[in-house]
């Protein structure tokens, strides 16, 4: 197992390098004039002055050199300094990353709490009203875009009841009630949207497993439904489901960019959007790096989970 993890970690390196190279190049291809923006929009700069500003920002070097300088710093734990705010990126991320992580975890939790039981029950009660409702719900959740749902949730309660979510984010450890009050709606929206896929996958896998010989044997032994389902079926049915959950992480990140903007949540999604618009290279690079790491590590964790769920799976 240890060797497997090491091998996987080793394979992470080219993935991350690939992502960072792509982002590094693509952000530099974006239209706009960073030097002008930093110098003051109306500033009339001579070529010499422009050169000086670029020199100061390290943008005069060839791109590959800029990349290696940046990577070198990243390996030493320095994610750079924001061009716009002049604040170290790590400081900004320290404040914003936990917010997005909390939102993402809450959303994931909600999606699993909704999708797994409904998926399992829908499979057990196949072709009943419950199953039809669950399947229709799953399709509906899959079809509704998060920005539309977010806008509705923001607009309609204010119109009907004069209610809107809180304006101000409070840290969970400072004020857990207000913290959850602010995050629960966007988390629920994201969770519901994610739950569609998970619900369908759970149902499909459960149906397949329930038709396996060993499950039929369990039934024929006269075991209770609960025992058959919980002890014999679910664990095996969940292996592909876990993969799907792992693959939801990038979708989750995409969702936070939209929903953080709609609900005014100060997470990295909103900050990323702002930083892309303002051509803040160090921030965009650092954020994408972290997101890429999160996806890779989550997938690794998913693979590790297989071994727990199916003892036949051995890594080596």
């Amino acid at each position, binding site marked *: 197992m240890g060797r497997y993890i090491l091998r996987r970690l080793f394979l992470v390196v080219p993935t991350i390098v690939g992502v960072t190279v792509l982002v590094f190049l693509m952000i530099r291809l974006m239209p706009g*004039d960073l030097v002008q923006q930093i110098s003051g929009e109306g500033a009339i700069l001579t070529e010499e002055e422009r050169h000086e500003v670029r020199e100061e920002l390290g943008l005069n070097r060839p791109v590959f050199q800029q990349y290696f300088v940046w990577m070198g710093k990243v390996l030493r734990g320095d994610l750079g300094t924001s061009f716009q705010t002049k604040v170290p990126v790590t400081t900004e991320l320290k404040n914003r990353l936990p917010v997005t992580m909390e939102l993402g975890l809450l959303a994931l939790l909600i999606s699993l709490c909704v999708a797994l039981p409904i998926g399992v029950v829908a499979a057990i009660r196949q072709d009943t009203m419950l199953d039809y409702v669950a399947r229709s719900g799953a399709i509906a959740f899959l079809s509704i875009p998060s920005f539309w749902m977010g806008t509705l949730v923001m607009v309609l309660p204010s119109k009907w009841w004069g209610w809107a979510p809180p304006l101000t984010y409070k840290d969970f450890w400072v004020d857990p009630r207000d913290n959850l009050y602010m995050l629960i709606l966007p988390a629920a929206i994201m969770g519901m949207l994610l739950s569609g896929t998970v619900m369908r996958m759970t149902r499909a896998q459960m149906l397949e497993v329930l038709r396996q010989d060993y499950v039929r044997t369990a039934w024929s032994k006269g075991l209770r439904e609960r025992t058959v389902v919980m002890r014999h079926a679910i664990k095996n049915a969940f292996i592909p489901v876990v993969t799907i959950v792992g693959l939801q992480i990038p979708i989750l990140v995409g969702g936070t960019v939209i929903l953080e903007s709609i609900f005014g949540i100060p997470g990295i999604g909103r900050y990323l959007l702002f930083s892309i618009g303002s051509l803040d290279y160090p921030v965009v690079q650092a954020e994408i790096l972290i997101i890429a790491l999160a996806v890779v590590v989550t997938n690794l964790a998913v693979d590790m989970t297989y071994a727990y769920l199916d003892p036949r799976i051995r890594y080596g």
Partner: protein
Amino acid sequence: MSGESNYWDRFLIRRVSRRRALQAAGLGSAGLAAAAALSCGGDGEDDGAVGQPTAATGGELTPTPGGTYVGTMADLYNMDPHKPIAFLTHVFASWIYSRLMRYASTYGELPQERWYDVVPELAQEVENPDPQTYIFKLNPEAKWHNVDPTFGRQVTAEDVVFSYNRYQELSPQAVDMAMVDSVTAGPDDLTVTFKLKHPFPLFLRRIACFQDLWILPPELIDADGDAEKRAVGSGPFLFDHYDRSVDFEFRKNPDYFEKDQWGNRLPYLDVLRLVVIPDPNTVMSQFIAKKIYGMGVQPRLLSEVMSAVPDVIVNRVLRNLTSFIYFQDSSYVKDEGPFNDVRVRRAVSMAIDRDGLLTLVRAPMDQEGGEWPNIVPGGLGRPWWLDPKSSEMGDAAQWYKYDVAEAKALMEAAGHGDGFDMRLHFSSTVYTNIIPYYQVVAEALPNLMREIGINVTLVPEDYVGQYFPVTYAKGEFDGMAWGLLSVFTDGLGYLSNSFLPFGQGGGRNMSKVRDEQLIADLQQATREPDIEALRSKLFDIQRYISDQMYYVPGINPMEYTVSHPFGSPPMNNTGPTTYGLGTETSMWGWLNPEHQNP
């Protein structure tokens, strides 16, 4: 229709007559709500911040100090007010920094004839011993904020000289003060003298202008190199924090030197919190839920807001803001077609159905309002604006008429009878929330242009990354662009910035128009000592530019702002202070305890 009018009247607390609106250049802060919608009261987290009414005079409550205002603001990209031309930076500066003079504002209704009055701010008095000398005596009570690095030190004449020199060195606006020959401190610490190269009757307006001479403390620049990392000034509010994409917070400057008519120190508010919310639907929802107390509102959403908030206060505002089409600079720099041909430019102008657009961006229940700008907007008022519909415009008035047939004939005559394809650049961010009509018109323009054979492809650009620094500030784009001209407080400001050579006073001459006759006329106007003669010269120039259509004016519509009654009425009664929101307006803001935030 009468039913609709009654409905409207119930909500429109202060209907602005056309004449009054024209002279007022917008109803001040209500219009500013669009730029930074200020509103008062807690958001649930500051409940009970409102005190008790202190007195009643003539049935009107006197302002109650204290409390927290919550409004909205857009993200900033520069905090140093000497560096950019971005209007948001100047709005931000007005909470923190001071000018020598400012525009009039007061508690209560400000008589319309005073809306363009220049009144003292840092300067306690001004002497004008001869037309070329202005001696400012600084207010001895004026102190820098009592924080690092100024620690409450008195504002001195040397600070003004320092700020002027820095402004001249850095500001893209510095040409607005090109008439200044020298600025000297002395003979005492509180006297500063401006010597002009020639008499300039608009000098005090320029001194008060919120795009120009903000007074900054030298020690801040010495310590930080610039004013980008923190903001320390002598204005009515102390800068607490700016959390990018989250919020701004300002606290009352307890040592601020301005007082109200009862002798109370301004500002009234303890805290001013401005949240950054990019989504207009979210802003509206938070307003309806009474968590945000004032906002600029899209006309299409106005009925929605009015039905959801029965006691809402609605203000109609005619701002001194010009919208216009500008052309690729090669049209004038390299004489490249098609826009180097005046007939094509006139055709573009005649293809714009300005009345139709005004109706499009007007609230459904509103039947009038809005004007046609030339480059000077109607919102600046009759003294400076020549109405394209008036007979005073002369022959050039014909180029403003919506006449597709005539426009097509002009295109034909210019050799473009078959039309052409063209890109139209516009900002797809920031303005969307702040000036809601901008995007509506941007989306309508392709249809209007198609009528005369110009097939327009819209090119949405991010305001921060591309539109402002490149398309607008440098004029580097192809085809056409749809823009909003910065706000100035005199007609000469609009015309000089638009038509003097780029970099030599033409800070907004993004198409790089270079018309020697026009330049000479503007330079002559700049040296005109008599204000009436100056006005007459500027009217001649407006006729000329309308004939040439170097820039094609769009519309100057009514804009709508709404506020809750918890917001103090004086918030809506200041003068032409679109960028001076912090000083001219916010320092008078207070929470009305008669209308508690539930």
